[in-house]
């Protein structure tokens, strides 16, 4: 499919978009929190991917390139946003996900807490728990040292756990 898209076949490129749109859009929305901004960023990333197709060597490289580009661009956008520019509550959107939740309240709380993490820490957590990347892959994707990834994960998990403890224990039996 990649080879056909590189050959200029738009239908093949559409297939590539369909195969990766969930990842790119969800990362964009969970980073930026505003659906319109996320849609625009996700589209920009695919338009840019179309321009760079000649440099993509394989499917894994394309996935790496998409994750890397969406994260870097989202972080850049967040840095350009004024610090005091609070988003109105109604604009902070949830990504529509398949309803296989065991505890919708807890999961909603977790997503809310993740959305409050600083941009780089949020990107690290999303790449780890949404994309299932290991720390070294996250370091390569975000261009940051491995130890920085580990410390972001450690601090973020502690902060998320503390935030969830305010709601209710995850597993009442395992609480000390």
């Amino acid at each position, binding site marked *: 499919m990649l080879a056909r*898209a*590189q*050959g*200029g*076949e*738009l239908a093949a*490129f*559409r297939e590539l*978009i*369909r195969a990766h*749109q*969930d*990842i790119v*859009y*969800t990362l964009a*929305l*969970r980073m930026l929190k505003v659906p319109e901004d*996320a*849609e625009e960023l*996700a*589209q920009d990333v*695919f*338009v840019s991917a*179309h*321009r*760079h*197709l*000649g*440099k993509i060597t394989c499917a894994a490289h394309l996935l790496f390139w998409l994750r890397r580009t969406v994260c870097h661009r989202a972080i850049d956008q967040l840095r350009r946003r004024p610090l005091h520019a609070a988003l109105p509550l109604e604009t902070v959107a*949830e*990504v*529509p*996900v*398949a309803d*296989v*939740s*065991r*505890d919708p309240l*807890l*999961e*909603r709380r*977790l*997503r809310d807490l*993740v959305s409050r993490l600083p941009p780089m820490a949020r990107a690290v*957590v*999303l790449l780890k*728990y*949404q994309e*299932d990347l290991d720390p070294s892959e996250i370091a390569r994707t975000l261009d940051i040292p491995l130890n920085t990834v580990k410390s972001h994960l450690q601090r973020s*998990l502690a902060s*998320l*756990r503390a935030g*969830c403890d305010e709601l209710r224990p*995850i*597993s009442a039996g*395992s*609480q000390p």
Partner: protein
Amino acid sequence: MTDEFEKALHRALRPGSPGGDFSDRVAARLESTGAPAAGDQLHSVRHHVFRSRWLPAALAACIIAAVGLVQLRQHALETARANEARAQLLQALSIASDNVNIVRAAVAREENPNS
């Protein structure tokens, strides 16, 4: 507890969907912006490589030419000033020489009033 917590995080952060027609919207944008077809990538890369090699060289050549022109103009100005100074000096020497001749003639007349 950690495993349960991380599993809950995995479940909470599973990817969602941008909604129908996302690929159509991207394709429409590609067509409307006239993005180069993927098949043109090689040409685009070649063009970029050409530009990336020649642009710095062209800039360097422009800078060298500009510096050369400035120095040439400065050299011409200095030469003109030197020529003018030489002409003034020659004129001054000529006037001084005339004056010396007049004085010498006057002294000669006083020494030999009969001549």
